[in-house]
Every structure is written in structure tokens, then in C-alpha cells.
């Protein structure tokens, strides 16, 4: 069965501290992997996808196929990073049907 796990419901850090939001997945084949973010009073939106291999707002995510993980990282957290983050793998090829994790709430304190 396809499954995505975000073990931390809440992650609380101080400004300038490193951040790592964990995501583990269980999928057959090689899924496409995405992180979505929801800032307060805004709609859910794409943050980044693993095939782009880019850094968005200072965040990067490394796909580890051996550990089936796709953790989201930022070396120095900012207050404006406070939001809900969702890991969302999807089967590759054919129909794109992402499955969302339960989300991790990141709070960055001043």
C-alpha cells in the first residue's frame, strides 16, 4: 500500500537554527516527490519537487531511495518560514495522484 509518513506533528525552532522536516514514503516503483506548504491564511501551494533539484526560499530536499526518505532542509530558519508543510509523493508515469502526509507545523521563534 502507498504510504507517506511525517513523524513530527510540530517542529519548533529559533530563528537562525537549522531545520529538517522528515518524510518517509512507501511506494512501489519510483514516485515523484513534492513538498507543499500552507502559510497562515493562504492556500496550499507547491514548495518544491525533487526532479527540479532546486532550492526554493532556501529549502532543499534530498531524495534517498535507499531509506525511502525525502526530508526538507533549511540551514537557517526565518520567522516567515512558519507554516504547515506537507510531503506528497505521487506515482510516476501516467496519472498524477499525490498522497499527502499529515503535515508538520513549523514554528520559528524570533
Amino acid at each position, binding site marked *: 500500500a502507498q504510504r507517506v509518513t511525517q513523524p513530527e506533528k510540530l517542529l519548533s525552532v529559533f530563528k537562525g537554527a537549522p531545520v529538517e522536516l522528515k518524510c518517509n514514503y512507501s511506494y512501489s516503483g519510483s514516485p515523484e516527490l*513534492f513538498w*507543499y506548504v500552507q502559510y497562515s491564511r493562504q492556500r*496550499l501551494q507547491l514548495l518544491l519537487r525533487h526532479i527540479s533539484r532546486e532550492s526554493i526560499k532556501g529549502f532543499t530536499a534530498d531524495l534517498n531511495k535507499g531509506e525511502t526518505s525525502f526530508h526538507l532542509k533549511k540551514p537557517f530558519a526565518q520567522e516567515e518560514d512558519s507554516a504547515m508543510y506537507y510531503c506528497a509523493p505521487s506515482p510516476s508515469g501516467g496519472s498524477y495522484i*499525490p498522497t499527502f502526509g499529515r503535515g508538520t507545523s513549523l514554528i520559528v521563534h524570533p
Partner: protein
Amino acid sequence: EAGVAQSPRYKIIEKRQSVAFWCNPISGHATLYWYQQILGQGPKLLIQFQNNGVVDDSQLPKDRFSAERLKGVDSTLKIQPAKLEDSAVYLCASSSIRDDGNNSPLHFGNGTRLTVT
């Protein structure tokens, strides 16, 4: 581009009543999704359309939920009769189809918050 539009933003009904939600996707987006997000959980896919055809409705409780996208553009999701456990935010999303035949990432609407009392 205009975003995904949803209405209403909020709805309060009593159990056993019926309710309908409306979604207008981004112009040109062939794929439309309805998600249910219960408080404290991630969004759960209810149904996915490509144009006016259903791609996946395996998690749609078909005894009470129905959805349609008759002209391949906007869509409605209906619940009849509602139960207390249907209280959630109902999210609509759309995506386009890339040149490689796969879908682009999802664009979400603001959602409709449903409270069933």
C-alpha cells in the same frame, strides 16, 4: 492567471441535510481534484477528473458523496445526507498536463470549511 475559485468559503448545516460545493479551476487545466481535509490531518483525495471523465474515485463515499464535471470545466461536490464526521475543509485543486503527458503540480483553491452539527 486567476487561481482556483471555490464557493462558499464556509457552510454550517445540520446532520442529514445536504450541501453542495462549487469549484472553478484555472483556465485550461484539464485535471481537477477534490480533497477532504479533516482537522489535524493531511488532505485526502476524494475524486480526480481529467476533463469530464473520472480518473479515480476509489476513496469517495459513494453512498452519500457525488461529484460531477459535466462540461470539463467547473465542478460540484455534493453530500447528501451529511454526517457529523463530514466536518472538514473541502479543497479543490487543478493541474495541467505537461508535454511529457504527466500532470503539473497542483494549484489549490482556498477551500470550503464545512461544519455539520
